[in-house]
């Protein structure tokens, strides 16, 4: 039958007796020139290793946007003209006890203000706080306007001048904006320059963030009463880059865990280290290739080396297992390595390709980070073919394995009764009763899972920046801002466009009022700001501040005057043709975003016919999230369809048996369902980060089926009953399957500690899928086979244990 029998691979302990011309052309090419191959690999490692160190870290948000969605297209087309969505930081100086309005506390605010002023990248003229000269008060008088700076020129910190400052704050109307209404804190608005006009350099977010932390530390480290809170896109990116650094540290941990596990299995440190080293070579190659191709490491793609490492170790473990068994039976290390290569190369390629299918399916999602993840992971898989399928056997052909582990491997396989209780327990599931039980439990689990998964939400569900954990410093600062200032970080910006000079048109602004009004009715909308809102206020201001003028009345002269002021304040671009209507939301839950999107689209359906003005979705963090949710929701179904389609085809080709496909795919589906239920329980929504998890989980999970089911099916075809077939399978590959499960999980479980929330989410879900898929393969799959796969009687049962991991050559 298909698997190699002893006659195919005679045990040869003397290398001189070995036929060097046996095996495939690839085997001959690789093994007969193993010195050269080793040297080449060394050279490539040095070369790519050099480039790997050059790889850039980036945490931009643009790549997480669904680039094909109309909202994102609209944003990209108009981003240069959109004012008022600038790259701002908001720094708040707060006191815990008493008020900010004491001589010392105001002095403190001024010092922080000055320290920020000197940070490179800060747009110093645009900075706004109590202590910047552009913060002025103004009142209407019978003669016209009267005004001055909020902090008067003769400010001396006396009670009298503090009272004056308080009065000016009231007159300037900056309460709730620059000064909290409870008088315990004040804000510094810090606009940033993307390009430094002096040096022409791009803003370095990591350095900026570092400087801000320095300021926070110097000013508040030994001060329990005062605190500094910082929010803004630049700070978020800075914190993400910090998170990336932390995650890189986890890699070392993943390596240690994998080494311990593998060593525990082989009991041979030498070969364990070799396997780990070769896998690390794969990671180096992969990083080097990425750097060469111009890829950067972002919070998503930084996870690929972990995956590559985990997959590599699991394949390395099988190679090691093969070599170990052959040496155990007396073969020369070289011969053992070569036999292992001969037996496992095609199987390994197939398994890796099936992983690749999981990654490749991700390419259909029109989100750059996911596509990058797909490409980088695919590169990693290709690299693994070289390092782990070719290099590991060659290295092992030199080093062999330790004596102790050889002795262990020489022990004859135990009979069914002598096996470890765990294996005996697993064997139960080849009997009808327990198998039916297992299937019944699975069905119950699936039903529960499906019911729970009904509540699966789209999008991010926590408050604050979704990239970071809810209790991170940044998100605590966000919560502080929301509590004390009328600002929300969840902004959905409608892009309002007219012809040049068209922003002053009354009908256009009336339509904007209509949209604003509809949006205000929407549950979850806190406030709407924009040119039309400010125009109404300024039109009142121009008319002596009499409230009955606060309306968009049809006096063109008044409107022109109001809007010319607003051009100066950058509420609209200088060409008077484009401005953002900013919708402030209470949260960024998918339901809230959907309501906003539906309102906007309904408005466009009703009034899109007025061609002098266009209302385009959407910019702002919530605009992007809304677009992402729409794409993710659609992709979630598509992706499941394609990934299962691909896996089914792959299984059909491998097993050439429909029951086999059913046995392989149903456990995966159960895992997918339970994964969704787990997401509901853990409060995770379907988002950019969790989308790849199911594809990866299924793509990698099918490996188990390939290992276990091929062997079972092969044995069955030999006419063995299922229990015997499964017994033999467990003997030869079962332990490896368990090893694969834990090594894969070891690779990703460290992510759970990541300060970047979505990485943690991915880590938890992937760990769950890898482990659960393992149980699926070891329990549910044989249980299903009990009922679905009919053994073909007639052939003589073959009880020989001489064949090792035999089925991989079968049907592949």
């Amino acid at each position, binding site marked *: 039958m298909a698997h190699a029998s002893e006659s195919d691979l005679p045990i040869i302990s003397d290398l001189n007796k070995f036929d060097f011309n046996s095996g495939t052309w690839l085997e001959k090419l690789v093994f007969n020139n193993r010195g050269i191959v080793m040297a080449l690999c060394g050279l490539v490692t040095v070369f790519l290793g050099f480039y790997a160190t050059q790889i850039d870290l980036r945490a931009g948000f643009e790549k997480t946007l669904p680039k094909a969605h109309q909202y994102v297209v609209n944003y990209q087309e108009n981003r240069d003209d959109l004012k008022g969505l600038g790259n701002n930081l908001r720094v708040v100086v707060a006191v815990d006890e008493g008020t900010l309005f004491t001589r010392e506390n105001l002095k403190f605010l001024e010092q922080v203000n000055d320290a920020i002023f000197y940070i490179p990248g800060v747009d110093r003229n645009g900075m706004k706080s109590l202590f910047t000269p552009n913060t002025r008060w103004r*009142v*209407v*008088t*019978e003669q016209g306007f009267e005004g001055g700076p909020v902090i008067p020129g003769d400010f001396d910190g006396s009670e009298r001048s503090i009272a004056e400052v308080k009065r000016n704050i*009231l007159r300037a109307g900056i309460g709730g904006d620059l000064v909290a209404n409870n008088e315990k804190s004040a804000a510094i608005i810090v606009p940033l320059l993307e390009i430094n006009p002096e040096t022409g350099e791009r803003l370095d977010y990591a350095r900026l963030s570092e400087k801000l932390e320095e300021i926070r530390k110097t000013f508040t480290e030994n001060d329990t009463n005062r605190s500094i809170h910082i929010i803004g896109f630049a700070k978020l990116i800075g914190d993400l880059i910090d998170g990336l650094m932390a995650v890189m540290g986890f890699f070392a941990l993943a390596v240690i865990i994998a080494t311990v596990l593998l060593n525990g299995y082989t009991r041979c440190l030498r070969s364990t280290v070799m396997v780990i080293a070769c896998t690390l070579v794969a990671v180096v190659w992969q990083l080097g290739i990425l750097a060469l191709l111009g890829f950067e490491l972002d919070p998503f793609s930084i996870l690929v080396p972990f995956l590559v490492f985990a997959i590599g170790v699991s394949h390395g473990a099988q190679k090691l297992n093969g070599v170990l068994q052959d040496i155990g039976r007396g073969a020369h290390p070289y011969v053992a390595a070569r036999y292992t290569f001969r037996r496992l190369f095609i199987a390994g390629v197939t398994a890796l390709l099936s992983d690749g299918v999981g990654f490749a399916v991700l390419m259909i999602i029109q989100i750059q980070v996911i596509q990058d993840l797909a490409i980088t992971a695919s590169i990693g898989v290709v690299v693994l073919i070289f390092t782990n399928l070719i290099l590991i056997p060659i290295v092992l052909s030199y080093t062999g394995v330790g004596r102790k582990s050889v002795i262990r491997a020489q022990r004859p396989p135990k009979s069914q009764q002598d096996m470890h209780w765990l294996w005996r327990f697993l064997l139960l599931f080849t009997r009808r009763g327990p198998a039916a039980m297992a299937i019944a439990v699975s069905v119950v689990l699936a039903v529960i899972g499906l019911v729970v998964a009904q509540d699966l939400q789209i999008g991010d569900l926590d408050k604050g920046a979704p990239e970071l954990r809810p209790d991170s410093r940044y998100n605590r600062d966000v919560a502080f801002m929301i509590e004390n200032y009328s600002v929300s970080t969840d902004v959905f910006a409608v892009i309002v466009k007219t012809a040049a000079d068209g922003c002053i048109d009354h*009908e256009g602004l*009336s*339509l904007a009022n*209509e949209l604003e*009004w509809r949006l*205000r*009715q929407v549950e979850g909308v806190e406030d709407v700001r924009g040119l039309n809102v400010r125009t109404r206020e300024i039109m009142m201001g121009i008319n*002596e*501040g*009499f*409230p*009955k*003028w*606060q*309306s968009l*009345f*049809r*006096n*063109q002269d008044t409107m022109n005057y109001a809007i010319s002021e607003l051009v100066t304040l950058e509420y609209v671009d200088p060409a008077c043709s484009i401005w953002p209507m900013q919708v402030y939301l209470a949260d960024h839950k998918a339901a809230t975003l959907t309501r906003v999107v539906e309102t906007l689209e309904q408005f466009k*359906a*009703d*009034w*899109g*016919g*007025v061609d002098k003005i266009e209302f385009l979705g959407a910019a702002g963090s919530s605009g992007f999230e809304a677009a992402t949710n729409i794409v993710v929701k659609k992709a979630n179904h598509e992706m499941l369809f394609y990934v299962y389609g691909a896996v089914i085809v792959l299984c059909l080709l491998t097993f050439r048996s429909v029951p086999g496909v059913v046995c392989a795919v149903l456990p995966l589906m159960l895992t997918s369902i339970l994964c969704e239920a787990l997401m509901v329980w853990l409060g995770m929504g379907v988002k950019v980060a969790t989308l790849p998890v199911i594809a990866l989980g299924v793509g990698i999970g099918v490996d188990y089926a390939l290992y276990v089911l091929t062997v079972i099916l092969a044995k069955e075809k030999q006419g063995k009953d299922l229990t015997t077939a499964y017994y033999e399978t467990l003997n030869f590959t079962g332990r490896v399957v368990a090893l694969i499960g834990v090594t894969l999980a070891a690779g990703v479980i460290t992510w759970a500690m990541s300060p970047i929330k979505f990485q943690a989410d991915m880590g938890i879900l992937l760990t769950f899928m890898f482990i659960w898929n393992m149980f699926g393969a070891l329990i549910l799959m044989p249980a299903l086979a009990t009922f679905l796969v009919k053994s073909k009687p007639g052939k003589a049962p073959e009880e020989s244990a001489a064949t090792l991991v035999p089925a991989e050559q079968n049907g592949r």
Partner: protein
Amino acid sequence: MPHTRTSHTRTSHTRTSDTRVLIGTLILLMLAPWQGSWAKDFDVLNLPAVRSEIATESLVYSIRKFHGRIYATGIQGHILWSEDDGETWTQAQVPVRSSILDIHFPTPDKGWAVGHEGLILHSVDAGKTWEKQYDGLRYGTEGLAYYQKLALQYPRDPYYSYLVEEMQFAIEQGADKPLFKVYFHSDTHGHAFGAYGMLLRTRDGGQNWEHVLHATENDSFYHLFDFAPLPEPGRFFIAGEAGLLMIGDSNRRKAVRVENVPWEGSFFTSVAAADGRIVLGGLRGRLFSTADEGKSWSEAQKPASSSLVDSVRLADGRLVFAGMAGDLLVSSDHGTSFSRLPISSGTRVYTLAEGPSGTLLVGGPDGIHKLTLPQ
């Protein structure tokens, strides 16, 4: 008289066919705001107000109490009424989405409301439903015809040709002038006035709105902000922009300027005290009162405050003035002196009215708030 003919046909049409109006409104409700391709022009004068959950939390321009009901007017064509002293509010059916600035009910059922776009609305069912009686587009065309006729009649009087020019300008500007105030002396006889000297009168319950600009001494067309009745029947006090104060007399059909002005700033609000004195509040918190129709004035003793934009006389005779920054001033001596009330809605205040037993209802940019008056 072309303008009277048009207004006749218009009003008789709306009067005699209530069901058709209803059906028309329903069709409008169904079609107008949702049929973009059909209704190409967006004009708040042609679009009915939409029921809104947040109407009581949105900008309110005035809160007034008539015949035991409290009314509030606001943006987006909001007219709200409450029969339980402001506890619960119901939104009226209004055929426009303009900003509604003031409201008056001379009888429990008949009422008028005015607003931006020179709008006048009328209700005969205590404010549940409203129909449009007048808008600013008519102001220019009807005024032009009217003053052209008068200019022909009195060729020697240059003021009529001056007003003809003003009306031509008004036509060019479109419906840009708000009516700030409406007051009905009876259920047929009323005045509406507003920006740029706009002053209209009706003697037939609004079937015709006549121009009376020529009968006012306001040839600079200053804004007219508020109205207060004088003790002598038919006489009233008008407060306006830049120190414009006038005494109106319905019987003599004239508004005569007060020559002795205490201050040349804008007076946004006026109230008649229990002793017949008129108390005026305005820009930068200035407060004056007169007991003799403006022959002499006294400035109130008061703490510093923001611009005073509305005022009310409480049932017990106390006067309360609202500063737009949210500060409230109270006087127990008919406006001679004021002190600050220690209560606040925490936001700007645009209007106020007396609420149930010892409370104030204040309105502003974020809707209606109830404040408890200190005893």
